[in-house]
């Protein structure tokens, strides 16, 4: 249950993020970048958790939505933002993030409407294919820099933006799932047929989860673009989607706190794991298999209801 102080905690979290952000020049550059990555991954993981964890729909295209948001936001900034006066830049950044998110949400709608009427297995393949198609489109489109991608994007993502939006994501997803309306997501997750018999329209809930999840993934993509300052189509491949899926599974599907913890841990250990090279993905694959067999509810879910594993 979302407690009464939720709104207050949200405002406090944003305030802290912004205040800390003012002092970010004093932090070690490397740690600051890792912290921003943590924030972006929290947004990605929490938004996928709405789709995969709460609603039980397996999407392998989260990196695709991220790519849509990232490319659109970066393009807007490059066209309007770079020449704008200093005071207008945060507004343009906000607008770029929002438009990126909305376009990603529309992409989510376009993918979701045909495939969500069907079983989960199809969805996995369609979303996988969608991610690939997005990559091919950006790779061939001259407007988006073709194979080189977009470069010289201003580095506007700060700790404040990152954690502020992460807090908003957690708040929105939390409020949504814990509202009367949001009980529908969990009902669809637990038993689609029973939910339908209770007068809940499973397709509408699934599409809603998909669109909202895609929106936040798009916003995260925008933040990512303005953090790395370059975008290339290769950065949003299937493996990126798998990274996010692993965060959600490790944290426990439907367990927001666990998913946030998993996003933080996996981002922080990312650098040491990079030394493993290709073995990193072998480790990820083993994590997936072993968790599914022994702890399908994730590492951080304790004594939860039976349905948590579904």
């Amino acid at each position, binding site marked *: 249950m979302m407690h009464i102080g939720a709104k207050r905690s949200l405002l406090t979290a944003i305030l802290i993020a912004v205040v800390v952000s003012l002092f970010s020049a004093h932090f070690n550059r490397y740690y600051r970048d890792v912290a921003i990555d943590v924030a972006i991954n929290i947004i990605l993981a929490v938004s996928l958790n709405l789709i995969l964890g709460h609603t039980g729909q397996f999407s392998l295209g989260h990196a695709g939505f991220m790519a849509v948001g990232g490319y659109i936001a970066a393009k807007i900034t490059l066209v309007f933002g770079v020449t704008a006066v200093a005071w207008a830049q945060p507004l343009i950044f906000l607008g770029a993030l929002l438009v990126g998110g909305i376009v990603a949400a529309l992409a989510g709608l376009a993918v979701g409407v045909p495939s969500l009427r069907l079983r989960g297995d199809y969805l996995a393949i369609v979303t996988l294919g969608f991610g690939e*198609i997005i990559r091919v489109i950006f790779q061939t489109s001259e407007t988006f820099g073709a194979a080189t991608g977009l470069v010289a994007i201003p580095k506007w993502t700060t700790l404040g933006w990152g954690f502020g939006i992460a807090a908003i994501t957690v708040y929105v997803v939390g409020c949504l799932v814990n509202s009367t309306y949001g009980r529908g997501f969990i009902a669809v997750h637990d038993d689609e047929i029973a939910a339908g018999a209770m007068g809940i329209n499973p397709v509408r809930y699934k599409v809603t989860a998909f669109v909202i999840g895609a929106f936040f993934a798009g916003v995260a993509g925008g933040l990512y673009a303005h953090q790395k300052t370059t975008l290339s189509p290769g950065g949003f491949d299937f493996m990126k989607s798998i990274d996010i899926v692993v965060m959600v599974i490790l944290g426990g599907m439907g367990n927001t706190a666990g998913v946030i913890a998993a996003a933080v841990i996996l981002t922080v250990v990312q650098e040491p794991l990079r030394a493993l090279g290709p073995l990193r993905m072998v480790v990820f694959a083993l994590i997936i*298999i072993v968790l599914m067999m022994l702890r399908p509810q994730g590492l951080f879910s304790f004594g939860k209801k039976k349905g948590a594993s579904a």
Partner: protein
Amino acid sequence: MHWLQQLTNGLALGSIYALIALGYTMVYGVLRFINFAHSDVLMLGAFSAFYLAPKMEAIFGPQSAIGALVIIVLAAAICAAIGILIELLAYRPLRKRPKLTVLITAIGVSLFIEFTCQHGAVFGAATKPFPKLLPTRELHFAGIEMASNDLLVLVLTAVLLVAMWFIVQRTKMGMAIRAVSFNEQAASLMGVNVNRVISFTFGLGSALAAVAGIFYAMRAPGIEPLMGVQPGIRAFIAAVLGGIGNLPGAALGGLLLGVLETVAGGIPGVSNYRDGIAFAILILILIFRPAGLLGKAMIEKV
């Protein structure tokens, strides 16, 4: 006769898709889930042939027909064993679990095989040239050019399809497969050993994937651990196109997809988006005929 040429090329590619699609559709028929690792079994089939080829060449001489046959049979046997093993270790413990769990595990198994094989100690990530198993010749017939390998693929696919039909429709094991696919619980009450049927299905499907993998490798510039992903996805789409769980449907879907892709690849302007065509077909079929071309719409019973 340009279009006739495209048609033959498409049929050769499509019959490879059909062989892979049979594996997907059979496993789907008995277990109701997509075996994502199927595309990696295909890759393992090609690599088995790659490592067997020099040894067989030493015994039977270079590019001999009997050597090629032995390679194909051995690779099929190896892959059948791998397929059975995957089911035993990864899927069987999860059989009574929610479908999402099994689906995620299947992706995990697929990634595990791919990245383990990419490691330098196993196959390595670099593309390796696939050995010529058979002498190749260009055949000319009524103005159509065709590689002898492609003709062989077509003929062999036809033979394997008939064999599959025979196994499923005319043998005791085939009857057991159909029974499990129809209703697992009732079949098990009638004395069908469900575990054995499922193992057999995985073995048979994986053997077909190995054969398809070898043929695919013959046409491809080389082999590498991720080579199975693209044909695997295409074959899955072919299975959905024909009606998943339906054997003739898988064959039809494979052939159709192969022809459509080849023809589209020949149209200027469309050819850039060749990779997207298969997915566009999938989305169209899911909207207009989710049960597939030959499948019957199933009413979900509660």
